[in-house]
């Protein structure tokens, strides 16, 4: 049997406060009929209510807001329609100004999305299955080497992919239809990293340069400040775009966790 231990690191754009971080990340343990789930999303900077949208998507996918969707186009479409309704009918919007109402109605929001479920962790063939819309990326790493990258995006292709989940109903079916799916086998000691675009783009470059150094560093991150120090340094060096960044690390091991770490 494989156990999972996950941690989420994040940082807002340089110059913005934590409250302005517009990505989302969520995880949930196995529930009846399905394995543990993990998701990250990246809300559009120029959207309205993007942080809420990204957060509702990831929370919904892992099952924190009603029944989570199966990893299939029809199920995802039905589920995303429900999330859209909740986003539009948010009671907080009763206090919106004219400008805010105008932006919600005319622009709305949009988020890239990456969701992952681990399956058969107690069985003979543990594996991951994932769905992606846009350029948030899953890296499956074993012994400091990438076993799989999903979706496969070259460094220069980040930021140009138009796929994601919109808040507007009109475009939903077409965009969900562009969802990509993948899966892979898991082994004891494997690591899964789910990253939003700016961090994922840097990872793809750093992996070409020195994979052992990269994956040792990421596997060893043990405090939010260590992550933020890494991000600050790469931004200052011009290696990482100044965008909200999120990295979820999921460690798979035969031995269960023996202690809980709380960072202060």
């Amino acid at each position: 049997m494989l156990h999972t231990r996950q941690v989420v690191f994040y940082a807002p754009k340089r110059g913005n406060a934590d409250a302005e971080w517009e990505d989302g990340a969520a995880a949930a343990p196995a529930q009846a009929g399905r394995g543990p789930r993990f998701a990250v999303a990246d809300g559009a900077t120029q959207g309205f209510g993007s942080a809420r949208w990204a957060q509702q998507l990831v929370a919904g996918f892992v099952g924190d807001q009603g029944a989570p969707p199966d990893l299939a186009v029809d199920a995802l479409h039905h589920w995303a329609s429900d999330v859209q309704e909740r986003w539009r009918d948010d009671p907080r919007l009763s206090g919106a100004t004219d400008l805010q109402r105008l932006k919600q109605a005319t622009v709305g929001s949009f988020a890239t999305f990456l969701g992952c479920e681990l399956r058969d962790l107690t069985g003979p063939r543990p594996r991951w299955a994932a769905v992606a819309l846009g350029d948030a990326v899953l890296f499956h790493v074993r012994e400091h080497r990438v076993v799989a990258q999903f979706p496969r995006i070259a460094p220069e292709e980040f930021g140009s992919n138009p796929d994601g989940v919109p808040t507007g109903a009109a475009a939903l079916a077409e965009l969900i239809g562009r969802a990509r799916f993948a899966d892979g086998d898991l082994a004891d000691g494997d690591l899964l990293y789910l990253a939003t675009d700016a961090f994922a783009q840097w990872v793809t470059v750093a992996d070409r340069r020195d994979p052992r150094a990269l994956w040792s560093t990421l596997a060893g991150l043990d405090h939010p400040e260590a992550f933020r120090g890494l991000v600050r340094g790469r931004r200052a060096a011009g290696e990482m775009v100044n965008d909200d960044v999120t990295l979820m690390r999921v460690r798979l091991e035969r031995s269960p966790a023996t202690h809980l770490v709380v960072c202060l």
Partner: protein
Amino acid sequence: MEKYRQSVSRSEPGCVVILLDRSDSMKLAWGRTGASLAEGAALAVNNILLDMCIKATTEVNAPVRHYFDVGIFSYGARLTDPGEGVESAFGGALAGRGLVPLPELAEHPVAVREEPSIDVMPVSARMPVWVDPVHGYRTPMCQAIAVAGAHVFDWAAAHPDSFPPIVVNITDGMVTDSPYDGATLEDWVRRLTSIETNDGATLFFNVFLSPFEVTEIVFPSDPTGLPAPGPDLFALSSPLPPPMVDNARVDGYDVRPGARGLAFNVGRSTLLRVLQIGTRVPDRAR
């Protein structure tokens, strides 16, 4: 290091300055719209300010974000001290102000009223108004650049890491005050565009309006074929930096290498599109 790559944030806001021609010729009718050049230009400026406010509106119960400092300077007829000259085009609570932070701008339109569509469509919408149409006198463009330049200089000094200031000059006529204070129009533009942040030099774009329905020329890469004063405006206009080339291409313009921030003989809807392209700075937003 590549220039013109800085995205806007509250700690590194951008700066947009519009120079608005309010000379006498702006009273001419603009194509078949039934409105004057001055009315069309004011409408486009109000639209672009609303666009900027909308972009910086991100969530309920949150103020408009301070992503830009904005200045509108008019030249020609003055409102506050009747006669010819240059002044801040803001009215009401913002009257006389130079560069105004976007959240304050959003709070203080001079009015919210029914305005016609920017295109020739039989629709209108209630929208905030910051600038009213005015026309009269000659075209003191040099003085306008001098006044705006002083504000831009102070702003760039205070924001060394920001995307450089963007100055958009909307005019329908020939400069009438060159040389001004011992310097020609070219000198004033050179002074303006020598003001830099670490991300690049100030951008100076020109939009030349035409009352006639003639062929529009947008973001040319060559002055050949431009009627007067097109070649002069071409020489004065900054090359479009890569992010704005991308903006223009997304909007369907065939932008060639060496393209300048110049739009010539533009109609009303083109004016708004050009303003949108010229004021959109790098962003990771999809």
